[in-house]
């Protein structure tokens, strides 16, 4: 069977199952599908999938003609199935809000414009004042509800991702210690006990996540090295450089050599280790610059962080 024939068959099967779901099949054919819907695993899942798509199509106003009429008259005849439709409507609202959020992230300048500013003041005329205010309040409530839901989900996603990154940071610290041990052995520096080198790591999210609070790293007197793990929105450069600046003193405190981005979960990140004794109790900015093949340097982002000395 060719691919197109196979696809046509699948389309036919979908339509056939839709006829079954909206009660348009003759009794004996429906009986056969009834049996399969309970006794055949593959068929049961397939039917459920077609039903989900059918309900979604109704919610998306994609049904028409006989199918729509039968859907309303037959399919919607029980509360169970009406609940399915309401669930699909709720899911759609989340998806719409998700899409809107993605667009806002893509266009940050637009996102800063409050949505109510799209209502020109001239429209808010007195005779419609109360209804407009009521409508605006409903919109605000809906907007806040959806935003709240998404912020919570985003926070949870970020938490999961950063937990994975923390693990990666720990691994990088261990790798760094091992490399230093090997390096010291190679250079015959037995007087420095590298195994005792104390590091502290700080994971910094991409700078575009403006809602996150200022990250703090605590440095103890015995801390030797601070490892910064800087998450990138995207890794478009073959190399990176990290420059740590003291914004109050307007000074560059430290800068790395050329670094490569590593994969951390489904993200890329640059890690840089700097001597802890260079840092004081204050705010710093780790500036990440991308290095082009032509040797040019382009700023990727600023990662502010706060240092606490113990």
């Amino acid at each position, binding site marked *: 069977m060719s691919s197109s024939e196979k696809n046509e068959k699948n389309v036919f099967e979908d339509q056939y199952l839709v006829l079954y*779901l909206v*009660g348009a099949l003759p009794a004996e054919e429906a009986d056969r599908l*009834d*049996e399969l*819907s*309970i*006794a*055949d*695993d593959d068929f*049961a*899942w*397939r039917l*459920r*999938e077609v039903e*989900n798509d059918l309900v*979604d*199509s109704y919610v*998306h106003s*994609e049904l028409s003609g006989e199918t729509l009429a039968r859907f309303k*008259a*037959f399919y*919607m*005849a*029980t*509360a*169970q*199935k*009406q*609940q*399915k439709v*309401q*669930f699909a409507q*709720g*899911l759609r*609202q*989340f*998806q719409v809000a*998700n*899409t809107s959020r993605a667009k806002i992230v893509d266009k940050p300048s637009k996102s800063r414009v409050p949505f109510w500013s799209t209502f020109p003041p001239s429209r808010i005329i007195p005779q419609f004042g109360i209804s407009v205010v009521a409508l605006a309040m409903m919109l605000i409530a809906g907007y806040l*509800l*959806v935003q709240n*839901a998404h912020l*919570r*989900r985003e926070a*949870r*996603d970020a938490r*999961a*991702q950063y937990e994975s990154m923390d693990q990666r940071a720990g691994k990088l610290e261990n790798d760094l210690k091992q490399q230093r041990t090997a390096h010291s052995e190679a250079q015959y520096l037995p007087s420095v006990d590298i195994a005792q080198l104390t590091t502290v790591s700080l994971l910094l999210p991409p700078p575009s996540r403006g809602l996150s609070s200022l990250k703090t790293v605590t440095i103890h007197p015995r801390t030797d090295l601070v490892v910064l793990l800087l998450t990138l929105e995207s890794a478009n450069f073959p190399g990176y450089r990290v420059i740590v600046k003291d914004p109050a003193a307007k000074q560059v405190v430290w800068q790395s050599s050329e670094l490569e981005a590593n994969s951390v979960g489904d993200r890329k990140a640059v890690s840089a280790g700097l001597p802890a004794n260079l840092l004081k109790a204050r705010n710093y900015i780790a500036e990440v610059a991308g290095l082009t093949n032509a040797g040019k340097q382009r700023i990727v982002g600023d990662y502010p962080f706060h240092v606490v000395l113990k």
Partner: protein
Amino acid sequence: MKNWISTQDSFQNFLHWLDEGVDSAGEKYLEMHRRLVAYFDRKNCLTADDLADETLGRVAQKLQEKGEITELSPAHYCYVTAKFVFLEYLRHAKHGRAGLEEFSVSGQPGSVPAAAPLFAEKDEDQEKLLSCLDSCLNKLSAADSKLILEYYQGEKHEKIERRRELGTRLGLSANALSIRACRIRTKVEQCVKDCCKSG
């Protein structure tokens, strides 16, 4: 659920029989219950949940009486029993009685019954539905939550293309992806149902 399970042992025996040798930790039972509810619901029975319980109760009772059922697979046996339960339901409804005990029938296709409450009949119910949906999506893993929102997003060709990309990204065949998405949706739907019911 009806009074059909006399002992914990017989219930365990019933679960074991449904599992057909592969321990599903009760998932097979729940899945069969869902399929039966859907079956009675497609027949526009008002009390699909009760009829599904009735069916499973009869099967369990039969298993208890006979010790074993080997002539048909568990799923097929459940179907045959469900068919009898449905015929009885129709007969009772036809005679104007309340059906099997308290069961009732919706009558002709197209009549809209008022049995089980809907998720959202008023604005505040709609808010509750969204809140439950949010809470249920939050109970999923981040990956599952993302998958269900992405899989069921879009319309017509856009949706097909999105699913193809999603399958490629996750390294799943179209069929495996569809089953996974369907399982998650079923789980979330049940969660929302329970959440809305809990008030």
